[in-house]
């Protein structure tokens, strides 16, 4: 059957493309999930759900992306799933991010000793930011996304995203300063 042969070939091509996407962005999705939910266990669940969801809609996303990178689309799926995660379980990331996150990040030992307190304070501050600012910072710094990619993931304009990131950094600076106290 020629048409079914064609369908099978198309499907194989699609699966190969998805496999490449998965390999290229597993770390991005995991990092995003981890900084959103604050622990490895839920981050694993969220990452798994994100890729399963992405697989279901991959064909359409690829068609509609018109060659643009699919990372913002993947992160948007993770973002929506994380929102559901909090809504369903009626909880917020009250607890600080696991230390394991900082430790598993690619820091040198000297860095860790020197900056550990600062990094902890910053991570705690990130958790206090409003959702959109926190997400923008995670995308920029943990995933290295540029303004355009972040704008696509958040459904905003490039200009609005630039302002959002700037304000997020300013607010975080304030939070960290307050946390350090007047003697700092």
């Amino acid at each position, binding site marked *: 059957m020629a048409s079914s042969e064609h369908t099978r070939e198309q499907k194989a091509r699609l699966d190969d493309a998805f496999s490449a996407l998965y390999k290229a962005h*597993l770390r*991005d999705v995991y990092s995003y999930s981890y900084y959103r939910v604050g622990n490895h266990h839920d981050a694993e669940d969220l990452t798994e759900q994100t890729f*399963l969801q992405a697989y279901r809609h991959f064909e359409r996303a690829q068609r509609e992306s018109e060659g643009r990178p699919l990372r913002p689309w993947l992160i948007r799926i993770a973002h929506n799933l994380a929102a559901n995660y909090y809504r369903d379980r009626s909880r917020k990331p009250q607890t600080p991010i696991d230390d394991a996150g900082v430790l598993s990040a690619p820091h040198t030992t000297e860095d860790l000793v020197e900056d550990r307190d600062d990094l902890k304070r*910053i991570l705690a501050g990130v958790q206090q930011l409003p959702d959109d600012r926190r997400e923008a910072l995670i995308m920029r710094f943990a995933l290295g996304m540029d303004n355009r990619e972040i704008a696509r993931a958040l459904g905003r304009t490039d200009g609005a995203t630039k302002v959002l990131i700037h304000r997020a*950094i300013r607010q975080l600076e304030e939070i960290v300063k307050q946390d350090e106290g007047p003697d700092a």
Partner: protein
Amino acid sequence: MSEQFAEFENLLRKALAPVEPPAELEARLELNLASIVDLATEELEAWELSSMGDPRNWTRIARPVAAVTIGSAAAVGLVLVRTQRKRHKRRNEAAGAVDLAGRTLRDLAREARRVADDVF
């Protein structure tokens, strides 16, 4: 951009460093995705094999048959209508019942040829 701001950004970059996924997650995810791909392929093959036996697919086969049937019925109807229209003329011209039957059959054949030319 102030130096202080740049320094803070640098710290932020360190604090939010990418986190490597655990190796077991990678293996589990690959396994799950591979299972889904296999399932989807099996589903496609199973569908091809069972498509003739599945009543839900009969509509695909029945459609052309129905089209031919409906088309033929419409053609027959058209022949009958056209032949019926000429019944008064035939009755007036016929010499008797046998002659009328003969003329009716000839008209039927003529109209059938015309409709066949028009439709097919």
